């Protein structure tokens, strides 16, 4: 048997972007902004555009609309383009009836050079090609252009029709000169030939199963198997016209020569249509709904939301109940709670840091996350130690189909990701990122501030996942490191202590291991341990310093027993241990939240200490999932937290319920009422309970969550979710005027509001949501008679997000946000401190004024290039596209007699690139 390698010319095409929908706003926007870009970039395979004739023939033109591709299947218009003098609509697109192979330049064959030529074909009313112009040359010395033109002149199309009448049109046609990846001819002993091959998706290289492959002129067809392979046997020698048709991909047409006694083997790449990409990423929140409010998003949605640079954790800030942090910081103000009262976890293990430098970028690439589950309140007993909300991110299993690689870069950082199978049962992913902000800031003038180490961060992740039969073992190693060091050359006039070298270093490292064991069909066991270090260092000259090194161990051990479809019991143990040292040289504390102005640093006394500490906090939790009727789901549960440092125990009962009010014809729930009530506890911050700096006799803080809501599916893709909530804070730590005790547990608070989420789920082209929160968050300090506003109280929080996929290459998106301005405490006077030559402000009524509302529009444009074996994606994001000067706070002069508004960042364009193999 002789195996031969052969070259093959495989022209591929599809009707592409024929339609014009002049009345679609997004189309207009796209057209006017980017049509020139479209026409200037290389077309990928199957690219064929219909555009209006040039000026010489425009009198005959119409306005093309949706039409059929050459294989006869109906195509949705991909890139509608408006003719400048359109007078009608394209009612029938031309179909390619006669296709002619172009000769391959002999000189190019030798070097295996491939090329593509984009031509503008002018068709007359009969479909005959009357003129061929090269629109985009192959730019090659190998005469690709001439040969493509020569072949195209012999094409014959069916007549195009405008307003039902044959009309002349122009189409853009891309002719690709490519080598077949693998074509071998196997000598056989029979008079017939064979055709076999492999069909994979272009870009992702995923095998495409169950596709129909048809030999058009012989009226026979077959299907691809699970591995994307197909085979035709006993074929009469001669040319065969091959068609591969699939709704999710552009139709492929090819011509191959069948030779007697030989097997022709081909490999085809099918290009996905709009809305078909990125399905390999697991969708967020697939588990059954049981909470009153758990928001879920797909990774594809997350990646494209304007203003987030594709950062999954930042997307949470766009959901109902989440207030906006000034200057786009990374904290989460969930249902009016202090950012410190809400926790972030990785695979349900708490981590103190999720963003680099407080909000620039999360410390995990979104690509590695399987899900982000956001619980704005009434979370189940498996979570504790926080009185606000929970954001739980989970790493995904590295892909096991083949090796993948990804390179990504934007204005902040660049990163790499490699993943793939390492054995039959195990997969591995390794990733890392590093910022280059330091390079950009190196050019700042040095007379005021000079950087010793300009701000820089990096993070790294290694994920190993093994599973076999009833066992699954995961090992994750990840961490991050942020650092900056700068010299403030001269004392700051209004705060002269601020001078010298400023150092800040933050790092986090974790080794996470988990073992899941399905003991039986009804019993599952999970054990996970995370160990690591948190390091925080800060210093300013000799005046201030902070160094905190902590070794952390967190553990979860839990069992799930599914007695029946109606009853499941879950419970477990959760423990945390912190052992570390702390060295402090810090000033008298500035005022706590809601207490008004900050005293200048130079007026505060400096104290220092150096000590070791250790504490261990165990917790037990139990939750039942009981479905007494088909429509009712009850989730009673409880959690008991023990704080050995404070010597306090918190039993927290919780219950959630869901009742299905409406079902569709198929019995699927479309209307559900839901509610929950529960108690939540957390320890005060470490400074508040420290013997030297706080009050070691403080106890745990508590909150009670009440919520009631209704969710309704308006259609297959439209959902509305309305939740009302009330949160009562009690036992809150509050500063007092006692210089020894400093704090007590007599603070309280009340937060109430309404959340609405109106969402269009991700379809082939569109997704978006409108999120609105009406809320009021108030606090009552120890000894106070009246409530006051919380410092980040925002009455109205509106977020509107829309993302539209124009075709497989282009997407546009927009985000608009409106929030009520944050409360401010005005200053009514100031006292001159003669020792330090500074003024100490005297605050007026706490949070008695507000800055103006925040409004911002962010835009995003994505462009994807799909090559056979890899994909390249680029995006342009414009934050604050209207360049609105949004107020973020107030700045005061040296003696607090004048103020001016501090505004947010101006319009900021940013770009990013991602290559995926």
């Amino acid at each position, binding site marked *: 048997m002789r195996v031969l390698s052969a070259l093959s010319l495989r022209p591929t095409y599809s009707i592409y972007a024929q339609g014009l929908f002049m009345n679609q706003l997004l189309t207009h926007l796209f057209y006017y902004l980017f049509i020139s870009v479209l026409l200037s970039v290389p077309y990928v395979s199957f690219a064929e555009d219909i555009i209006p004739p040039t000026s010489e023939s425009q009198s005959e033109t119409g306005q093309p609309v949706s039409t059929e591709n050459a294989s006869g299947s109906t195509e949705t218009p991909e890139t509608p383009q408006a003719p400048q003098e359109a007078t009608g609509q394209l009612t029938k697109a031309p179909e390619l009836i006669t296709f002619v192979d172009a000769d391959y330049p002999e000189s190019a064959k030798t070097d295996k050079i491939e090329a593509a030529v984009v031509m503008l074909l002018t068709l007359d009313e009969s479909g005959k090609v009357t003129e061929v112009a090269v629109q985009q040359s192959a730019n090659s010395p190998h005469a690709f252009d001439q040969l493509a033109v020569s072949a195209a002149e012999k094409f014959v199309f069916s007549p195009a029709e405008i307003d039902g009448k044959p009309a002349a049109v122009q189409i853009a046609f891309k002719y690709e000169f490519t080598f077949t990846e693998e074509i071998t001819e196997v000598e056989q002993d029979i008079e017939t030939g064979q055709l076999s091959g492999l069909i994979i998706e272009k870009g992702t290289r995923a095998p495409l199963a169950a596709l129909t492959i048809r030999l058009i002129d012989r009226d026979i067809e077959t299907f691809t198997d699970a591995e994307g392979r197909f085979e035709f046997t006993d074929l009469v020698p001669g040319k065969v016209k091959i068609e591969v048709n699939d709704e999710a991909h552009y139709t492929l047409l090819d011509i191959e020569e069948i030779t007697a006694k030989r097997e022709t083997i081909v490999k085809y790449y099918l290009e996905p249509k709009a809305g078909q990409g990125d399905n390999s990423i697991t969708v967020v929140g697939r588990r059954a709904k049981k909470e009153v409010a758990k928001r879920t998003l797909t990774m594809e949605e997350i990646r494209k939301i304007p203003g987030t640079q594709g950062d999954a954790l930042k997307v949470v800030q766009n959901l109902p109940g989440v207030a906006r942090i000034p200057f786009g910081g990374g904290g989460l103000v969930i249902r009016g709670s202090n950012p410190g009262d809400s926790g972030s976890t990785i695979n349900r293990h708490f981590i103190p840091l999720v963003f680099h430098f*407080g909000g620039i970028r999360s410390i995990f690439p979104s690509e590695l996350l399987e899900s982000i589950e956001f619980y704005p309140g009434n979370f189940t007993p498996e979570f504790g130690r926080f009185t606000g909300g929970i954001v739980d991110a989970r790493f995904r299993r590295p892909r096991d189909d083949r090796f993948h690689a990804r390179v990504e870069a934007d204005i902040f950082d660049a990163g790499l990701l490699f993943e793939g199978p390492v054995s039959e049962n195990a997969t591995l992913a390794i990733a890392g990122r590093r910022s280059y902000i330091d390079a950009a800031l190196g050019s700042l003038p040095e007379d005021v*501030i000079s950087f010793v180490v300009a701000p820089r961060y990096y993070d790294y992740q290694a994920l190993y996942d093994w599973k076999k039969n009833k066992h699954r073992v995961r090992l994750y190693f990840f961490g991050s490191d942020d650092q900056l060091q700068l010299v403030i050359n*001269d*004392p*700051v*006039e*209004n*705060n*002269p*202590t*601020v*001078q010298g070298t400023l150092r800040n270093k933050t790092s986090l490292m974790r080794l996470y291991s988990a073992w899941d064991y399905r003991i039986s069909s009804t019993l599952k066991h999970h054990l996970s341990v995370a160990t690591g270090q948190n390091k925080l260092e*800060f210093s*300013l000259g000799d005046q*201030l310093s*902070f160094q905190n090194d902590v070794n952390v161990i967190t553990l979860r051990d839990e069992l799930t027993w599914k007695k029946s479809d109606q009853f499941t019991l879950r419970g477990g143990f959760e423990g945390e241990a912190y052992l570390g040292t*702390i060295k402090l*040289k*810090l*000033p*008298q*504390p*500035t*005022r706590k939240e809601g207490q008004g102005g*900050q*005293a*200048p*640093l130079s007026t*505060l*006394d*400096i*104290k*220092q*200490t*150096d*000590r070791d500490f250790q504490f261990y906090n165990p917790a037990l939790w139990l939750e039942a999932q009981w479905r007494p009727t088909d429509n009712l789901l009850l989730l009673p549960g409880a959690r008991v937290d023990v704080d050995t440092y404070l010597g306090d125990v918190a039993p927290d009962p919780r219950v959630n319920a869901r009742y299905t009010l409406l079902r569709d014809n198929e019995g699927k729930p479309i209307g559900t009422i839901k509610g929950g009530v529960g108690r939540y506890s957390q320890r005060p911050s470490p*400074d508040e309970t420290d*013997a*030297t*700096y706080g009050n070691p006799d403080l106890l745990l803080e508590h909150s009670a969550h009440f919520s009631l809501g209704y969710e309704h599916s308006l259609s297959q893709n439209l959902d509305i979710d309305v939740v009302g909530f009330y949160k009562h804070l009690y036992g809150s730590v509050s500063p007092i*005027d*006692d*210089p*020894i*005790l400093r704090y007590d547990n007599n603070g309280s608070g009340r937060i109430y509001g309404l959340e609405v989420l109106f969402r269009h789920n991700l379809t082939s082209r569109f997704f978006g949501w409108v999120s609105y929160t009406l809320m009021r968050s108030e606090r009552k300090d120890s000894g106070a008679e009246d409530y006051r506003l919380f410092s980040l109280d925002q009455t109205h929080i509106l977020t509107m997000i829309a993302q539209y996929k124009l075709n497989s290459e282009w997407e546009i998106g927009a985000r608009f946000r409106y929030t009520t301005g944050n409360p401010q405490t005005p200053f009514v*006077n100031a*006292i*001159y*401190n*003669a*020792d*330090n*030559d500074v003024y*100490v*402000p005297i605050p007026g009524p706490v949070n008695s004024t507000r800055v103006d509302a925040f409004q911002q529009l962010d835009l995003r444009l994505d462009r994807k290039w799909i090559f056979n074996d890899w994909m390249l994606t680029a995006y342009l994001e414009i934050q604050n596209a209207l360049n609105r000067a949004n107020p973020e706070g107030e*700045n*005061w002069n*040296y*003696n607090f007699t004048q103020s*001016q508004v501090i505004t947010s960042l101006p319009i900021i364009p940013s770009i990013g690139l991602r290559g995926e193999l």
Partner: protein
Amino acid sequence: MSRKITPPTSPTATIKEQNTHPYRSPQWLMTLATLGLVLAGLSSGCGDDGFDSKSVLQTYRVVALRAEPPELSLIESSVLSVYDFHPDELEGDRPSIEYSWRLCLFSLGSITQYDCLLEEIPLDDLLSEEMMSEPSEDAESSSLPPANASLTLNPAALLATLGEDLQMQMEQLEMGAGMLGSEMNFFESGISEVYVKLTVEIEGEPNFELVKSMTISFDDERTPNQNPQLDEVSLSEDINEDESLPISSTLELEVSAREGSAEDYQTPQSAEDIKEGIPPEVITESLLVSYYTTSGEFDQAVKLVDDSMSELTLGEEPGEHLLYIVLRDGRGGVDLQRLAFKVEESE
């Protein structure tokens, strides 16, 4: 051309230690807040925020409140001198100004805007002849400008005058707030800190409130803080009341401090550190010089004394003007000079 102004010699500074008020504690895990504070400070100090600089004297201001000596003891009085400025005095028409002095024995300091935990003691009413001793000879013979107001504070006499009233207030404080502990017992710790408050009243203008902390030492072995001393003031142009400088011209200033002005002192310790025998950290004072003027603006109005060069761009307002140079040690020690000069339109 430069002019050197050398003040007369004053007592040599000695190394001493000081603990800040023992019951005022810093808050740890405030790094991020501190970082924010630093950045806020940077933004307010470095950015073009459109506000007038603190160094520009346009309204009534107290430029310095100097105590000599800067610390109190039970056996020595201290003279507090007010150096202030009112824009009318440039035209020789200084208005009538009233000064009201008060003393606060216990306060949480700037975090509570110097609210007094006990009743404030109005010093004007309590001042007896023995408390109001004359300013010391040394102060009179220095290069200090004449003070606009002064007060002599004699703690021993003050305590004797307050007598039972003070004792009663302190007992109330102990019982009411439970504050009597090792940290509050200043008689055991050896030092305490009191606050002198001054209210300046000028008819038709808002009151000016001022506070100065003063350490009272009960420890004979402790070396008290001393005022730093300006040694030399160098100017790029010779200035005095007879010669004029052209408007919008520039003037370079540089000062130096007399040797020993930057004293060493010990940082305060927590009770646990003392219990564990951790020695206190010894720090050298960081001397800052502040410039103020009635004409023009400085490129940098607050400088470290070791790098004190600053450039003054004079204003466009001709006439008599003032330039103040104030040296501070950050612990209550102050020295200053005042220079008068004329600005005229260049011919």
